[in-house]
């Protein structure tokens, strides 16, 4: 038997009808969005777009109706998501909440948290950010130092979060922090708290990425008082909550479509009759994409059945990041163009954008080395 099974992805005609509907929507919505902006992929932030997505019922698709959801299947959600990403739609305003924070609250939140927040996520009105990384805690998440101390009527929080994507636009953060013990306790003593970012004592400062863009932030907590019911699930259960999200976070189409805008512009630049060399190079990428998509949809099928394919998800993300990072390296060999963010040529601008974002692909959501460590564990090596 193979060590790591990837069952055939579920097929469904219903999802194809939905796909056509999404494509129609995007054709109109994104008609004026140039490739250079599509290259932003899931970093593109557009509140109004997210609201129109919400109105279509394409956020919170799998959640219960009583929380604003639409009770559709995970595979339908997958179709909407991959169509959004392939088209370079600006999903950042709803995307983190839809993928991660909402499902977390659904599983572990209080009824009050669910009832007040989930419908606002579903309508595209509410943005979340994820407070995991810290200055001294990147891959080593258990080294977090931000601490929430129980006090009269709530929690007192002190610490610093770093690389917090879209904290400057978000209403809420899911804060991973220490509630008990010390860093020597490793994953023990960690919890997750729901943070309203308008709470006094929170300072959000921009951290520009190497291209000069502002997605990242530093979020400093100084004697921030959170209500007692900010705790998500049980105290001390933070690590388990985070681990159970990983398969969702690592196997989706966002893990291999980050450079799709460049692949698309590459095909455009090469035209209908590419050289044999170019056809081979592009065809190889297309073949990789077809296979990655199958792997990813296979994991989606497993998740839909309630399995926890963390290992398979790690494999998808590792292979996906290699693919995303390879595209700019190949594109620049096939088309004569200097990367230039402000070029009037879309290819040059998209190339510039993708080259400068590519290093993040194998960092965010679990570094290559961490993923490969998980895979090695799955192989029984550690």
């Amino acid at each position, binding site marked *: 038997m193979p060590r790591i099974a990837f069952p055939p992805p579920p097929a469904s005609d219903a999802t194809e009808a939905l796909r056509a509907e999404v494509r129609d929507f995007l054709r109109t919505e994104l008609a004026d969005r140039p490739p250079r902006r599509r290259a932003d992929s899931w970093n593109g932030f557009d509140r109004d777009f997210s609201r129109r997505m919400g109105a279509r019922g394409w956020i919170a698709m799998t959640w219960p109706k009583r929380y604003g959801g639409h009770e559709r299947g995970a595979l339908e959600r997958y179709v909407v998501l*991959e169509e959004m990403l392939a088209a370079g739609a600006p999903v950042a305003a709803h995307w983190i909440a839809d993928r991660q924070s909402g499902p977390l609250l659904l599983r572990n939140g209080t009824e009050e948290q669910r009832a007040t927040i989930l419908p606002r996520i579903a309508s595209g009105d509410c943005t979340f950010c994820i407070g995991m990384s810290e200055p001294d805690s990147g891959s080593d998440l258990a080294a977090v130092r931000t601490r929430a101390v129980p006090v009269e009527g709530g929690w007192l929080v002190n610490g610093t979060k770093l690389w917090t994507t879209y904290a400057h636009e978000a209403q809420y953060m899911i804060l991973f922090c220490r509630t008990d013990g010390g860093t020597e306790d490793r994953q023990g003593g960690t919890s997750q708290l729901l943070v309203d970012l308008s709470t006094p004592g929170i300072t959000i400062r921009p951290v520009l990425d190497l291209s000069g863009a502002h997605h990242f932030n530093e979020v400093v907590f100084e004697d921030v008082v959170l209500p007692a019911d900010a705790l998500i699930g049980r105290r001390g259960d933070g690590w388990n909550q985070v681990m159970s999200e990983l398969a969702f976070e690592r196997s989706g189409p966002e893990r291999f479509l980050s450079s799709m805008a460049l692949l698309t512009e590459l095909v455009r630049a090469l035209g209908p*009759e590419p050289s044999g060399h170019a056809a081979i190079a592009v065809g*190889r990428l297309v073949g990789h994409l077809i296979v990655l998509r199958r792997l990813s949809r296979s994991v989606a099928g497993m998740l839909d059945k309630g399995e926890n394919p963390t290992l398979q998800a790690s494999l998808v993300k590792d292979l996906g990041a290699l693919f995303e990072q390879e595209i700019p390296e190949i594109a620049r060999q096939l088309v004569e163009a200097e990367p230039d963010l402000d070029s009037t040529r879309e290819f040059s601008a998209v190339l510039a954008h993708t080259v400068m974002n590519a290093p993040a692909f194998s960092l965010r959501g679990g570094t290559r080395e961490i993923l490969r460590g998980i*895979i090695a564990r799955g192989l029984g090596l550690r």
Partner: protein
Amino acid sequence: MTDSMTDGILADTARRLLADRVTPDVLRLADEGHWPAELWAAVEEMGLPLALVPEEAGGFGLGMVEALGLVRIAGSFAAPLPLADSMLAAWLLAGAGLEVPAGPLTAAPPKAAGSDAPSLTRDGDGWRLSGTARRVPWGRDAAAVVLVAEQNGRSHLVRLDAGEWRVAEAGRNIAGEPRDDLRFDLALPAGRVAPAPTGLDADSLHAMGATLRSLAMAGAVERVLDLTVQYAGERVQFGRPLGKFQAVQQNLAVLAGQAAAAGAAADGAAEAFAELAAGGARPLPTGPLPIAAAKMRCGEAAGIACSIAHQMHGAIGFTHEHVLHHLTRRLWSWRDEYGNDASWARQLGQAAAAAGADGLWPLVTAA
């Protein structure tokens, strides 16, 4: 690997038989050019060569995807037999209404380097066939060869029986498997030639062969991963098993990724093969994209997997004694049969160019 492909009773039985019978001696003798008659007899007795044909023609009535799982299993054992080739040939013959003879069968790869389409003409009530089929798998050992030939713009399937060809060049792939150039020029009775079923021609046969090699590669890469993980757990250096070193773990994780990709790619190809066989495939010559993707991707995985596996095995894996090379030499061979990575990638690239930038993503989702 799909549940349906490899969890059936037949799959289990086949796996047990091959585990038992594909011994180091059998592999060595085959490598030296001896036909493994006993192994073949056992495989034929189980009916495996007929796995793709319908029940009324002697098959098991399995779904096509499930039957194709046998190719993957055989690949994982480096079984030195034309099982995949026989399965394909039997299916071709049965589908065209031609008799399926006993014994090892094979199909002539229609696009092997240097091939020209054979000439097929009417000759009274019968036919006249002449030409050369290149790199025919196990040609010298086959009881019959199936080839596709055009007559009046229509594809026909032709069965040649042993003795009706001359081995013009006895070739071998680098795993020692026969790949023979067969020359023929003869009259054939009516019962040896039939119009090919709709959709079956040189292009689709090429794609089907590519599917078989992809499946075999997926099985072999999985086995290479197994062997390498096992060895890394056993081999102690610097006081601990190799598998405890992070550098080694990272390499093995890469190998596992290649096995996963090859497996998924081959699964996709098997589904496309079934669609092609049912006559419902998308238009050729671009061919079904999942097959092109699979042959390309499995070929790439093969190269990476072999490289890592040999690196991890060190000098012992480079010896003739060790079992590893029976798999790696097959992988290095199969990736160049029925079209290499580049030829299938080129087809994918041309399909992408034809679809254009705005048609690229729809092309991928339709695959």
